[in-house]
């Protein structure tokens, strides 16, 4: 049985790099920060470097405190509501900013991102496809 999905957006990434890295623009009121983030289906949350949140004018520690567990330990983040854009699609979500200033990784995870899209991946070609979900074009799923 064939399954069909349709996507409004596509973007290319360097399949030779570790991780699937896409451009993200974070926004809060009139402030905006451009950065790159890795799409990570294994991450519960969207997590960004503390400096990005500070550039948006956020008081990081004023957010909702959350512990994230890793294979080797854990780290603390603070959740804040921000807007962000990926491949031309805009989202508003509760995303995490790391407490540790040395934490420099940005991740697009499940809560706030994956739960709001249909995602297609052809790693062989370095292509990622995105569509908003729910979306009229996918109501037949």
């Amino acid at each position, binding site marked *: 049985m064939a399954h069909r999905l349709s996507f*409004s*957006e*596509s973007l290319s990434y360097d399949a030779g790099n570790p*991780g699937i890295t896409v451009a993200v623009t974070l926004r809060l*009121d009139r402030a905006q920060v451009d950065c790159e983030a*890795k799409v*990570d*289906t*294994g*991450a*519960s*949350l969207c*997590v960004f470097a503390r400096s990005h949140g500070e550039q948006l004018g956020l008081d990081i520690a*004023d*957010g*909702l405190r*959350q*512990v*994230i*567990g*890793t*294979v080797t330990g*854990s*780290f603390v*983040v603070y*959740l*804040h*509501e921000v*807007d962000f854009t990926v*491949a*031309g*699609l*805009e*989202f*508003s*979500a*509760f995303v*995490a900013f790391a407490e540790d200033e040395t934490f420099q*990784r940005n*991740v697009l*995870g499940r*809560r*706030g991102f994956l*739960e*709001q899209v249909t995602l297609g991946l052809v790693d062989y070609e370095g292509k990622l496809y995105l569509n*908003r979900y*729910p979306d009229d074009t996918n109501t037949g799923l």
Partner: protein
Amino acid sequence: MTFMSTTLDEVLREARKLAPDERRELAERLLEESPRSATDGGKTHGQKDDGLSADVRRQRLEWLKSHRAEYGGQHVALDGAALVAVGQSYREAKEKALSAGKPGAFVTYLPKPDEVAEWGGW
């Protein structure tokens, strides 16, 4: 207004025929011409709050902090800072909010107070 809706539908129908890159360019040009502070500006997928202010965000954050023990581990849908729906999934909360006549409700997962979130493979 029917005339406006019909016109918008027609424009959207034509825009959907464009190649992805052309659609992106069209969207970027339209965004450039229409500031985010305009009436409908800045609306984002699934979270259509008109003129969302820092105060609303602040109230929402405070609501989430103060109701973490009660609703933690679930998705909540907030209209401003007022709870309109709770669900075990994003979909359930979203659909309940739609049924409640709040299509622009902010839907988010609220972690339990002692919850440890998963970190992926990076």
